């Protein structure tokens, strides 16, 4: 758990101003608030734990460099998602090239037990475990969109749209389709409403 529990009253704009003035506590509060979101973005690109941790660290280092430039605090979430996504793509691109270039670093790239973002090993509750397993069977785009949307604090559709380079009008429908697919996958395990019940759901 984070060292400093974020409080709802802490306004991001104020935190940014204070951090820009050199206030470490304000900076820590920003880190506490958004680390889960950055982690979700990196893991949504199916990075292993070590690579995902690198992406989160790099994103924080970039924000430190750009604290002066972020004039619109409401853009912070989109900026963070975009930076983490670009850094994730860079890692994915490098990994692909290493696959082609040879096996000089094979041992370093071997996944550890927790490397699979949708591993269910840490879940004690059977229902949670099945739900997470089904989530892992969704396609990559669904996992990226849902992981971004489920993060706390939840980003807006506009933020997810600009960060994942999807039309803003497609976020809502994608979210709906992906959740429907999740229900289909989970239905045989008795976890979610059946198709007939889904039809009754309020939108």
């Amino acid at each position, binding site marked *: 758990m*984070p*060292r400093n529990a974020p409080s709802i009253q802490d306004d991001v704009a104020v935190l940014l101003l204070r*951090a820009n003035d*050199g206030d*470490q506590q304000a*900076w*820590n509060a920003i*880190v*506490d608030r958004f*680390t*889960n979101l*950055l*982690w*979700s973005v990196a893991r949504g690109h199916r990075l292993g734990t070590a690579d995902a*941790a690198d*992406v*989160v*660290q*790099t994103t*924080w*280092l970039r924000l*430190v*460099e750009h*604290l*002066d430039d972020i004039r619109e605090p409401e853009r912070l979430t989109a900026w963070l998602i975009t930076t983490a996504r*670009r*850094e994730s793509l*860079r890692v994915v*691109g490098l990994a*692909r*090239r*290493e696959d*082609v*270039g040879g096996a*000089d670093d094979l041992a*370093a790239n071997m996944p550890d037990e*927790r490397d699979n973002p*949708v*591993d*269910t090993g*840490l*879940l004690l509750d059977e229902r*949670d475990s099945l*739900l*997470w397993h089904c*989530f892992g069977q969704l396609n990559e785009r669904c996992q990226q969109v*849902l*992981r971004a*949307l*489920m*993060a*706390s604090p939840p980003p807006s559709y506009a933020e997810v749209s600009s960060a994942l380079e999807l039309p803003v009008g497609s976020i809502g429908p994608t*979210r709906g389709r992906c*959740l429907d697919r*999740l229900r289909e996958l989970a239905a045989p395990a008795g976890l979610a*409403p059946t198709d007939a*019940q889904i039809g009754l*759901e*309020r*939108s």
Partner: protein
Amino acid sequence: MMTNDELLADLGRVALLADPPPQLTYELGYAAFSLRTVDHELAVLVDDSALHEDALAGVRGESNVRMLFYQGADVGVELHVIRSDGRSSALGQVIGYQFSMVRVELPDAEQLIAVDDLGRFDVELPRGLFRLHLEDPDRPTVTTGWTNL
């Protein structure tokens, strides 16, 4: 029966249980603040061959080569990184000003490298994060963005 909002909230709860950010990511995030350099000019990474779509289409023998280009206000730095056996050697070229030294910073170490008369330098880099500080007695330091090798 769960609405979409409830299902998404439930997924978020399960994600935090199944795949929480490791404590280390928070610690590294807090620590990043101490690496802030307020009075330096920033040279931003504007081109990285690792991001190119055609990375796979390159010559196979060159697939461990990565080209990085950083652009500041009036200074550019090109880095040609060659990776082998888990370490990287980089050939650097500074464009736009004759700096005397490059200070190579890692999260836990740093070293000073001389720049030759043509703006060239070479450096060994471990896997992980680094950034460069171009230093000269006659002008403000130019610092590149952090880059992950």
